[in-house]
């Protein structure tokens, strides 16, 4: 109320300045008139009455001024005056200004970006109508299971199914294109509260009979890019995975699926699931591919729903054969959902921790800078107080300066937040299968404002303490430059800086280790994927028979190898990474008795074609590659990696020529290659048996690897044309240079690396700023001492030495404290380190050197100021 009233008075005073002045005059004059009239009535002559009235009134202008002040009119004028003075002060000490503004801008910017990312990834729930009781299953269920739950579950209402990021091969403008889509229930749109942009969504009727209604809803993006956004799209046909669909509607813009990063563009009914899912018969009981969403029935908990679903599925299993035995289902509320991508969860934790720590350090640092500045200005403040300035006014001036710095920092924070946000979201746009993820992240204004508020508050708090201290200071002491209490602030600041140095060392070392690790990851282990293009052939999606599929792949491989500029080409099993260890398998040795199947050796099996090792440059240790000798019907052969060979050698037999039984099929070992998988230092190497692709008729899904001379993507058109010449209908997908796949393999480690590297950079900067603050403060405090010493003949180096020494002591103490911290953080990082020990001496030494270098620089700048002290000026100044 009072605030409002005073605000109103300020505003009206400002905007009706002249009217207010007039009214004030009218009122005061009326008073004098009234008084004069009264006096006249009591017998005083008119002229004398007026004179006495004016006298009794007192200083007219003085009271007017007091009224203006009482009215609050002064506020803005004072503010402008303070701002002008503040700007002048900031210009006078550009070092302080730059450091403070930069600290603030980095802090606010980085935090805005980080919290914005968190908000986009984790806090924004899907656009459901009433998200509170919306739940999702963690696991996938088969179509019959879904229909059964939809019919019988009482704790769940409106059960809908969703198979997102389904591979759809669509003929668009005469070209086969790979588009991600989703197979969804008709209730999906309703439960999410979506409205069609154009046309309509499919009805429950169209989602009821298997394979009857090929209707599709397309995404806004696809509608715009492929059809130019014309409403004539409705009723047109669209061939999806060789099945003709009718387009009935367009999704609203910005909806790309229910999981963050999804890029669905086409939605078809679950009754058409067979079109979208080809790896098992989509309507069979054991083919689990659908995630379920539902609304909890009123008054039901997720635990009750889990129990009911579990019971229902058990009942279904006991009455109908073919269902998989399931673990207890996990049903979560939408708000609690941990998203499909594990690395996002990791990212979430790291970013939250980093953002929090960063904010704290920045507030602490800003506080330090302001405390030092407040102390440095004690003399000036004492002088102003001595000249009669009001304490309130002085404090207010200091606060205005603080706000000014915060404001400038906040202004600079906006572009910083923008660039950090775009760096964060562009970090892994493409996953290891070449599918893009779309993250709609914008620097959020609310977050920005909130952070500016927090930082400003912290700034104010720390500006106000030294200011108050100064304003109470004994003027005599302060003017003489020996204010008591200043030493204590110095001590706590030094402790702060030492802690920062210790933490920075840990961060720098961790960042260094991860950087080395990243280099090792990108280089690949015993292989070279530079100049290699990967792509996936999926003839099964267009209903090839397995035998025809292999013939097709052989032909493609033969023709691709003939393209000029292509060094070699091969293929491996389609799922997963080209050089990955393949799938879990069991290895048995002939003649051995294994009491339990679990006693067999757990290995990985990877099916590859001839030329695979040459293409990926995986070196042979002994033996030979697969070749023409190994016919489809001749005895099966295998190549083992070093780790597996070593396991076999422990049986005192050379592996070449030995027979092994991989998953029940006998193979003869014809070669040994080096381990090609990068492993973190805590993961043991993987034993891998490579089997021959062409000897396994079940292999139809192929991931090609093509080594070229030069840029792999430059060969893409020629390769596409060659494949199309064999069969234009076979989808060619997941095309990407293999270096991308390598990079993505350790995405957690890379995210950790980038975060820690930026964190270390910031920490180093903040450390240097903190150190600079401490030393600069000391130089200023001891200017007179320096002056005296110089007057007594000390040379410049002698003068600067104590400050540098002080800096070095601080850094050494901090670094010494930092070593155990660094050792333990490195130890914690083990799971992310590839090819480098957590206690790598070189990294520790390099980290310490970087820190020391930055520290020396930070000390040198103020120390140089001490060297430049003119003794005469310094002594007179004091």
């Amino acid at each position, binding site marked *: *109320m*009072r605030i409002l*009233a*005073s605000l109103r*008075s300020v505003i009206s005073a400002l905007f009706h300045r002249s009217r207010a002045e007039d*009214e*004030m005059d*009218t*009122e*005061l004059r*009326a*008073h004098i008139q*009234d*008084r004069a009239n009264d006096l006249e009535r009591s017998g005083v002559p008119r002229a004398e009455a007026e004179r006495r009235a004016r006298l*009794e*009134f*007192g*200083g*007219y202008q*003085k*009271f007017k001024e*007091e*009224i203006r*002040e*009482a*009215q*609050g009119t002064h506020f803005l004028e004072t503010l402008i005056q303070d701002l002008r003075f503040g700007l002048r002060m900031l210009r006078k000490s550009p070092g302080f200004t730059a450091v403070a503004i930069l600290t603030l801008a980095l802090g606010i910017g980085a935090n805005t970006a980080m919290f914005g990312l968190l908000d986009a990834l984790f806090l924004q729930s899907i656009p459901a109508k009433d998200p509170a009781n919306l739940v999702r299953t963690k696991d996938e269920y088969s179509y019959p299971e879904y229909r059964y739950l939809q019919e019988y579950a009482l704790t769940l209402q409106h059960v809908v199914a969703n198979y997102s990021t389904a591979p759809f091969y669509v003929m668009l403008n005469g070209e086969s294109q790979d588009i991600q889509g989703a197979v969804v229930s008709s209730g999906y749109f309703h439960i999410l509260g979506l409205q069609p942009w154009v046309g309509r969504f499919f009805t429950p009727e169209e989602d009821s009979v298997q394979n009857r209604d090929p209707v599709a809803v397309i995404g806004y993006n696809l509608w715009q890019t492929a059809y130019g956004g014309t409403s004539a799209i409705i009723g047109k046909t669209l061939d999806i995975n060789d099945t003709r669909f009718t387009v009935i509607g367009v999704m609203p813009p910005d909806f790309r699926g229910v999981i963050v990063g999804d890029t669905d563009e086409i939605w078809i009914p679950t009754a058409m699931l067979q079109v979208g899912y080809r790896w098992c018969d989509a309507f069979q009981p054991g083919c689990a591919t659908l995630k379920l969403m539902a609304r909890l029935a009123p008054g039901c908990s997720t635990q009750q729903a889990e129990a009911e679903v579990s019971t229902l599925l058990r009942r279904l299993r006991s009455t109908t054969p073919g269902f998989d035995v399931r673990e207890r289902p996990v049903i979560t509320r939408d708000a609690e959902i941990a998203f499909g991508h594990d690395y996002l969860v990791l990212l979430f934790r790291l970013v939250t921790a980093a953002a929090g720590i960063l904010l704290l350090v920045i507030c602490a640092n800003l506080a330090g800078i302001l405390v030092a500045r407040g102390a440095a200005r004690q003399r000036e403040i004492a002088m102003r107080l001595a000249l009669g300035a009001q304490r309130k006014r002085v404090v207010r001036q200091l606060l205005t300066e603080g706000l000014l710095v915060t404001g400038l920092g906040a202004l600079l924070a906006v572009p910083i937040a923008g660039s950090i946000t775009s760096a964060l979201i562009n970090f892994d746009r493409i996953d290891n299968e070449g599918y893009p993820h779309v993250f709609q992240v914008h620097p959020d204004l609310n977050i920005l404002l909130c952070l500016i508020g927090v930082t400003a508050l912290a700034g104010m708090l720390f500006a106000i303490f030294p200011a108050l201290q100064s304003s109470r200071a004994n003027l005599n002491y302060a003017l003489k430059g020996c204010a008591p209490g200043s030493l204590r602030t110095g001590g706590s600041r030094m402790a702060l800086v030492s802690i920062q140095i210790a933490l920075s060392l840990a961060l720098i070392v961790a960042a260094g280790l991860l950087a080395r690790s990243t280099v090792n990851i990108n280089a690949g282990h015993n292989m070279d994927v530079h100049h290699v293009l990967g792509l996936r052939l999926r003839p099964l999606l267009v209903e090839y028979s397995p035998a025809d599929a292999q013939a097709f792949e052989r032909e493609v491989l033969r023709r691709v190898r003939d393209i000029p500029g292509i060094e070699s080409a091969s293929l491996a099993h389609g799922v997963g990474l080209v050089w990955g260890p393949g799938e879990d398998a069991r290895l048995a040795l002939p003649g051995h008795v294994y009491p339990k199947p679990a006693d067999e050796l757990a290995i990985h099996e990877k099916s590859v074609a001839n030329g695979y090792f040459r293409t990926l440059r995986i070196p042979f240790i002994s033996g030979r590659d697969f070749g023409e000798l190994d016919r489809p019907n001749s005895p099966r052969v295998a190549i083992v990696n070093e780790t597996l060979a070593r396991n076999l050698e422990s049986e005192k037999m050379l592996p070449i020529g030995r027979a092994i039984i991989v998953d029940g099929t006998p193979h003869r070992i014809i070669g040994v290659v080096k381990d090609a998988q990068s492993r973190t230092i805590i993961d043991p190497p993987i034993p891998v048996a490579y089997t021959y692709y062409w000897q396994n008729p079940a292999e139809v899904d192929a991931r090609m690897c093509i080594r070229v001379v030069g840029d792999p993507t430059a060969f893409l058109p020629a390769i596409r044309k060659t494949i199309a010449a064999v069969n234009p209908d076979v989808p060619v997908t997941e095309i990407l240079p293999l270096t991308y796949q390598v990079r993505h393999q350790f995405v957690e480690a890379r995210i950790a690396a980038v975060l820690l590297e930026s964190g270390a950079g910031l920490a180093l900067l903040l450390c240097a700023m903190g150190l600079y603050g401490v030393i600069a403060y000391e130089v200023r405090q001891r200017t007179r001492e320096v002056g005296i010493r110089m007057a007594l003949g000390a040379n410049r180096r002698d003068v600067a030495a104590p400050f540098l020494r002080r800096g070095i002591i601080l850094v050494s103490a901090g670094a010494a404290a930092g070593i155990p911290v660094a050792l333990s953080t490195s130890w914690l990082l083990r799971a992310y380190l590839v090819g480098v020990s957590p206690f790598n001496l070189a990294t520790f030494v390099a980290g310490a050197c970087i820190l020391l270098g930055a520290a020396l620089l930070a000390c040198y700048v103020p120390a140089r100021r001490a060297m430049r002290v003119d003794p005469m000026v310094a002594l007179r100044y004091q």
Partner: protein
Amino acid sequence: MPQHAQILPGTLDLLILKAVSLGPLYGYGILLRIEQISQGALLIEQGALYPALFRLVRQGLLKAHWDTSENNRRTKFYELTTAGRKRLRQEEDGWNRLVAAIASALQAQPEET
């Protein structure tokens, strides 16, 4: 002529609130009312009234409006707001306690035995 007392700092506000509590008044009227209720015992510098009035308006204790006075001139009238009435009661209580305390302190006699 009664003896004049100097006005204590801070008591001007209380006097204004008290004067206005008896009915809306304009500036000069407030002055007269203060003189009247204090039987002329208190003298204030007349101009000092106005900064105090503006301050009280800004604090929301008084509200002001322009109206025509009895001698047909446009004049600014002040009256108490609810907050002002509350404040007046508090100040009165505080003042009375203070006066009582001071009075009893002054009446204390040195112990003569």
